[in-house]
């Protein structure tokens, strides 16, 4: 089981020693044009979670390719590039310009942009035609049937799934005004974990595609639960904010959590969760 960061939750150029603990670093989403992002305040703490409305702040495709990506390559760790856009051609153009990265994650589900995108399957199909690199589709659990979306992107040529993105949410300040300038934001943190586990479970049953599970992972035990539900790899997001040592800590805890659960590897936990003997199947 590899441990990655959730896109947008770490800047490897600002904190390379944190990124170095990961099995691969996932960039913040790159869009065709530069985006300054949302006005502040952009973040708010909630019960067992937080909201963010960063608004896909990024330098844009050209500056990313000319400046950021070479500097990331110099750091020497495996890279995943998160690609965003507002129509299938946006995504496909960026994919076609990428090489020498381990994978591309298609951000099909940012809750902090209003522009209507093409369907997930259309975007994946366009990207599939433009690159031979592994394509991971990052989906939202806000869809009424995320497994149906998973099947559609699998048919369109996705190589894997990243599950899940934040969920659109609102928090109010003490004056009953929206806590974020944008009004709403994406909910992350432990509050998201049960939603994410369910999405991983049903998408695993629906497609068999490799899954990077994420949403509220704080410990090795949490990571093992994602494995039990069908995740091959996991990504850490909000936990990195309070604990830059989280990747190494979670990796160490994962080994202990496996021992506690009586499994040799995280992958074995999936068998355990579905064991007919225990009768404790993960409901799909």
């Amino acid at each position, binding site marked *: 089981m590899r441990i990655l960061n959730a896109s*947008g*939750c*770490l*800047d490897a150029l*600002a*904190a390379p*020693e*944190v990124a*170095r*603990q990961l099995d691969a670093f996932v960039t*913040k989403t790159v869009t065709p044009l530069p985006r*300054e*992002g949302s*006005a*502040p*305040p*952009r*973040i*708010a*703490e909630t019960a*067992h*979670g*937080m909201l*963010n409305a*960063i608004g896909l*702040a990024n330098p844009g495709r050209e500056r990313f390719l000319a400046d950021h990506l070479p500097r990331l390559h110099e750091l020497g760790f495996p890279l995943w590039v998160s690609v965003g856009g507002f129509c299938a051609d946006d995504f496909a153009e960026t994919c076609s310009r990428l090489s020498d990265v381990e994978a591309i994650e298609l951000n099909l589900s940012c809750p902090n942009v209003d522009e209507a995108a093409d369907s997930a399957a259309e975007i994946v199909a366009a990207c599939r035609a433009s690159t031979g690199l592994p394509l991971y589709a990052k989906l939202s659990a806000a869809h009424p049937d995320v497994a149906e979306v998973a099947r559609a992107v699998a048919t369109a040529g996705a190589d894997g799934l990243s599950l899940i993105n934040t969920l659109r949410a609102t928090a109010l300040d003490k004056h009953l005004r929206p806590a974020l300038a944008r009004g709403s934001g994406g909910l992350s*943190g*432990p509050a998201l974990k049960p939603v994410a586990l369910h999405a991983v479970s049903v998408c695993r049953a629906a497609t068999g595609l490799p899954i990077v599970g994420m949403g509220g992972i704080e410990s090795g035990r949490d990571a093992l639960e994602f494995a039990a539900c069908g995740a091959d790899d996991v990504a850490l997001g*909000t936990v*990195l*904010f*309070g*604990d*830059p*040592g*989280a990747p*190494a*800590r979670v990796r160490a805890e994962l080994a202990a959590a496996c021992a506690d659960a009586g499994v040799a590897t995280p992958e074995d936990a999936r068998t355990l969760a579905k064991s007919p003997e225990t009768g404790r199947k993960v409901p799909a």
Partner: protein
Amino acid sequence: MQSSDSPSRHSVTGSERVGPYTLLRLERGALEPGVPGQFFMLEAPGRLLPRPFSLCLAPPGELVFLVDPVGPGTEALCRLRAGDEIGVLGPLGRGYRLDVERPLLVGGGIGSAPLPYLAEQLGGDPPVVLGFRSAEYAEAAALLPSAEVVIDPVLVTELIEPDCDVFACGPEPMLHAVAGLCPTAQLAWEAPMACGYGACYGCVVEIDGALQRLCLEGPVLDAARVHTHVEAVA
């Protein structure tokens, strides 16, 4: 940030009320106190995210922070008692430049917090002016015994001599007013932060005309970088 360590654990050595604020004393451990104006992320017990604080005092073996209980995180910090333990990360960000000729320290409310350590590091008992919203809040001026203190509706900016090298920390309107009076002032800015090391992109402030992360660019900023109307005002 060069380290990828988890926040180190630090025992509370004491907690005192200073007006409505709490002076929270932590065992220093292996942490450096850093440059005045830099900040530390303190674990807020029972909360998901740590909170940023500049260092108030650095007596031997301790790191001391002034906490204003304005929400659930800071209230939890104010409830800590000697022997309790929290995670601490820091020092982070860019602090004040100390190589100035005529220092004047300007604080507003909880913005007084970094000034005692700043005064100590500058040495020579630099002049300090502080503004508070009420006499109760002004009890915090005891941390800077030689300070000149005003209480609302008198504004601390009325005490600023324009030729000084101003170090300021306080609410945003005060900082803008200081910047208008002293275009070379160093201002300690504030913003909500989830991480303190550039990961969350939450703490952006308009710096040099663009939204930039305060934790990396600041929190101490030259007035000209944040106050684009300096010339129009002056």
